């Protein structure tokens, strides 16, 4: 008897799965109906425009803290954009867990979905390596909010990013350490990720050119305890450079430095720009933006507050995702304004000609011929006694 039941169950599940995959394909038929109502509500100027933005990132797994922040900001960007422009854009997420193999499975899924006109992400540089050709062949624009390996934009034609590269950040940080902080000896600890090693390399190169003694260490991102590593920080070390992505790790590292009475200064990369999580007084953090938490700019402040009300705290990964998502949607919206369908081809072209005089990153966004952000500069902050970030350069 029992066996029969399970057979019925299995057949049902299979049948439903078949129906489900069928329905998944029918979607494009239903979309316009919903969109009509959306567009008529908002004033006369609104241009009818709809479609889907795909977002790839590590939404589960060990890097989910990064991916979920990106996802939430992307949702927030879509809602904000739709509200402002009366468009009807939808977000579709593809979880990669930072694994290139999964990224290269999600990529064809997005390619097969004809509603998707552009992609935000993926997050990691290795994932870009794995999906670059797939998107390139189809001519789909993909705008990463966080992949910084320097040569990516040269190799993939349809790839753009709203954050500057390792080659921009490393020398800026190195110059500040050598000139302003007068560092003689710097310890660089990478966290064995692609982002971290790339940045560590470019920084140590620039430091050595400036005549600073550089020591290298590396530690896994999953490490529970840094105290043994902290004990190993030599007493004549002036600066410890942490090109890390997880601010909570740097916070522990800083706490353990003070626990063991080490007085070297911590210098964090843009991955650590996270006033909620990293607040070791006296440390320095660099950032690709002068102001992502809206300290000065009221417009940015408003966005940040609205986001925090809905989703909670955020760090350094969210605002660039907001910018990247807006870039993709804006490209499609401009196509609609020109009376064209937001096809992948047009969107790709329009992303290339993006020209925002101002953005959530507190600076203009426009791309150079490779797809890198134009005139990238880095800013350096110092953390005050009360944990607030103060712009020092």
């Amino acid at each position, binding site marked *: *008897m*029992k*066996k*029969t*039941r*399970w*057979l*019925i*169950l299995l057949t*049902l*599940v299979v049948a*439903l*799965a078949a*129906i*489900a*995959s069928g*329905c*998944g394909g029918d*979607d494009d038929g*239903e979309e316009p*109906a*919903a969109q009509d109502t959306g567009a008529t509500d908002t004033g006369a100027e609104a241009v009818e425009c709809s479609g889907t933005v795909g977002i790839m990132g590590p*939404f*589960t*797994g060990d890097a989910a803290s990064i991916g979920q922040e990106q*996802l939430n900001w992307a949702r927030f960007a879509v809602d904000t954009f739709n509200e402002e422009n009366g468009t009807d854009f939808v977000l579709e*997420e*593809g*979880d990669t*867990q*930072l*694994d*290139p*193999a999964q990224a*290269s*499975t*999600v990529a*064809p*899924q997005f*390619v*097969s979905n004809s509603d998707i006109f552009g992609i935000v992400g993926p997050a990691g*540089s*290795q994932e870009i*390596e*794995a999906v670059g*050709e*797939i998107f390139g062949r189809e001519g789909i624009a993909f705008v990463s909010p966080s992949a910084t*390996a320097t040569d990516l934009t040269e190799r993939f034609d349809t790839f753009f990013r709203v954050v500057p590269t390792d080659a921009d950040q490393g020398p800026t940080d190195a110059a500040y350490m050598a000139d302003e902080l007068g560092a003689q000896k710097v310890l660089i600890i990478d966290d*064995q*990720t*692609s982002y*971290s*090693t*790339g940045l560590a390399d470019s920084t140590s190169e620039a430091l050595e050119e400036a005549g600073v003694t550089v020591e290298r260490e*590396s530690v896994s991102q999953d490490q529970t305890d840094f105290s043994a590593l902290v004990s190993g920080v030599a007493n004549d070390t002036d600066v410890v450079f942490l090109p890390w992505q997880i601010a909570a790790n740097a916070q522990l590292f800083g706490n353990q430095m003070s626990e063991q009475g080490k007085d070297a200064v911590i210098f964090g990369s843009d991955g650590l720009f996270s006033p909620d999580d990293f607040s070791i007084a006296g440390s320095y953090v660099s950032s690709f933006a002068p102001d992502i938490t809206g300290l000065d700019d009221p417009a940015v402040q408003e966005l940040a507050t609205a986001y925090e009300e809905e989703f909670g705290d955020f760090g350094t990964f969210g605002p660039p995702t907001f910018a990247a998502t807006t870039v993709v949607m804006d490209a499609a919206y401009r196509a609609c304004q020109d009376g064209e369908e937001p096809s992948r081809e047009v969107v790709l072209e329009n992303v290339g000609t993006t020209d925002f005089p101002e953005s959530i990153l507190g600076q203009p966004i426009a791309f150079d011929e490779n797809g890198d952000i134009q005139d990238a500069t880095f800013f350096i902050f110092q953390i005050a006694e009360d944990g607030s970030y103060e712009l020092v350069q």
Partner: protein
Amino acid sequence: MPRIGTDEWAAQAETRTEHYRGLTAPARRAWDRVTPQARFALFLAVAAAFPFTTDSTFLQRVGVNVLLFALLALGLNIVVGWAGLLDLGYVAFYGFGAYAYAWVSSSQFDLHWPTIATIPTVVVASALLGLLLGLPSWRLVGDYLAITTLFFAQIFVELALNLDRINLPGSDEPLNLTGGPNGIPGVDPMVIFGIELLRVRDYFFLLLVVLAIVVIGLFFLKDSRTGRAWRAVREDPLAAELMTTPVNRMKLLAFAMGAAIAGLTGTIFAAVQVGVFPQNFEVTLLIMIYAALILGGAGSIQGAILGAIVVASVPEILRTPENARFLFYGALIAVLVATVRPWRRLAALAGAAVAFGFAVHEIVALVWPEGVEAETRGEGIGGLLDSWVVLPAVERVLIGNIAFVLLIVAVLSLTQLRRDTRFVLLVPTIYLAAFVWENRLIFQPSVTRQLLFGAILVAMMTTRPHGLLGTPRVENPV
């Protein structure tokens, strides 16, 4: 269900007797008469036709993933299923194969070997590595062997991550062997008999051919002298030794064979992904391969393939929220159909659930109007659900979370209750499930995907402890 605990022959007594009953009996009887060879031929035919039924590179890519998993599970089956050695270092051989292919087919060392020479070399090298890493099996048994081989798997990832700056004596430039966290991108496509494999579809067919060869090989190996020796080693190494089975040599052979298949799969994976990265070969992958093998039924070739299909395709089906929703409600209905008897009761239950839903919806609409005012999702099934499920417009996340925890508690307590009480509680539980789905899970597709996959694994294992196609067997007390 056959019983375990006395003797293999007695345990399988019930399986040997014919017990076809019920509506589907003729179909099952007919299916059982199809020979394994014919079944496999049927599978190959269906699989070979698959890429022609769809233009979607996504579905083809999922097909490639399924075949990769099937090959990995088959290789693992030799070591775990047949020889009974708990090898947790298996994923290292897969990674080694992939990296080895990348070393000789990319600009990393500017080597571009012909594929036809690379594959045999890598397979032999993987097998040798398997021999080497299998050596601890001479001294260690059971979980002690498992943990030692797990170290090898972790060491592999550590090496891949850190062997990008090796300072060799006599050379100024540090040697970059693995590319560190960046891996080795831009691996050459495979060229087989002059055909350059560029599309996903090409690799699907290559994998299918490889799978056919491997399965045919394993089919003959299974009951050969070697295959029987492996099973003897699995059941009782001491007795096998006394019967002059060269136990240690058989263990090494199992490791080497498994490693060879994993290495072979690795080469194809590297070419499919156009690159190799350390993140590809982490312990999570190992867990998935084990899940495929054990879910399908360790020891069974068909089981390994079926398990691979489940483990590689279910997470992909769950990717799209619409599919996940159908699967969710589908599974809910299917479980009810399969467990609630008689049919009258089921009909009553369905009626009660629908009535309960509308009642709750009306009450909430009266008492707390905001509670049903969340934006709706248009017509169709979504629209129908909107007037049934309560959709609060405020504090949706918090309410959803609380309901989620309540749902877990309700489902768990359902299994503990007596029949009649259970029936009463079932109605609100069904409604709660729908509520949680529509208010919380639907907005977090990626998280839900993992949630459901976990639940599916537990449900499948607890209902089929021997795997979907596994045969019960008596185990030695440890």
